[in-house]
């Protein structure tokens, strides 16, 4: 590893193609481990702080969905998180042992919640969609289901 310059670009060049993998038990709270790991990886690669925070939230929400809805908190079921740095972006794969997402809402039902005082649904997936540069929620695999996300170093999220 070489010393990073101020924006981390030297480090980023040497780390091209590097991957990390985390295997989590299906227990609420472990999404924080993936979140912090993803944050440390992005920091090492010189990602700006705003993008690191976007990545951390997206990874935490994807893991939370995977362990609660995908694996249904089954003891023994695992969530596998892989992060790969390539071409100034981090690609994230979050794999669970479930059957995939049946319904992907376009927008969180916040308005509905305000009127009916019912908890809004779809907030996690909405956040993932808004904070990442690309997402595929429903890739089936032999062993389960994968959510794929891409966060670019230079991307940005706006409120619109």
């Amino acid at each position: 590893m070489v010393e990073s310059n101020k924006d981390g670009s030297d480090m980023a060049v040497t780390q091209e193609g590097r991957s990390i993998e985390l295997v989590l038990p299906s227990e609420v709270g472990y999404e924080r481990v993936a979140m912090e790991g993803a944050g440390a990886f992005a920091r090492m690669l010189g990602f700006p702080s705003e993008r690191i925070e976007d990545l951390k939230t997206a990874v935490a929400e994807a893991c939370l969905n995977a362990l609660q809805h995908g694996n249904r908190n089954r003891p023994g079921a695992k969530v596998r998180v892989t992060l790969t740095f390539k071409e100034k972006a981090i690609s994230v794969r979050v794999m669970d042992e479930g059957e995939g997402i049946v319904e992907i809402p376009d927008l969180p039902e916040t308005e509905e919640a305000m009127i009916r005082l019912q908890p809004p649904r779809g907030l996690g997936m909405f956040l993932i969609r808004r904070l990442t540069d690309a997402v595929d929620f429903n890739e089936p695999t032999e062993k389960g289901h994968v959510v794929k996300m891409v966060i670019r170093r230079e991307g940005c999220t706006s409120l619109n």
Partner: protein
Amino acid sequence: MVKENVIQVEDRESAVIFHIQGDVTRISEPPLKAAYDRLDHKKVKGLLLQFQEKAYFNSEGLKGIIIVLSEARKHQQKAAVTGLSKHFKKIFQMVGIGKLAGVYDTQEEALKSLKDRSKTEG
């Protein structure tokens, strides 16, 4: 692994302040809702949710905040939020919490806004 939130309630002239310690996740909704339900809604004109700046919020925690702020709106109480990091200010606006509560940098700004809004909106 996950700590329960401590919520301290402070009564001010313009609003009731909930000082919410800790991260805001699924376990936050019951104490937040219980603290809100204990208020005397005939007297309370404003509600300020004061979070710790290093607090982490996930979608489950955001749901609880939306429910409590929706209840406040039903009771015609003005609401405000403070103590958020730059990232979570963005998240709060993204998920629509900005429609239910003003988001402020400091407690003073939030209380002033609640006082002003009570005067102008009656």
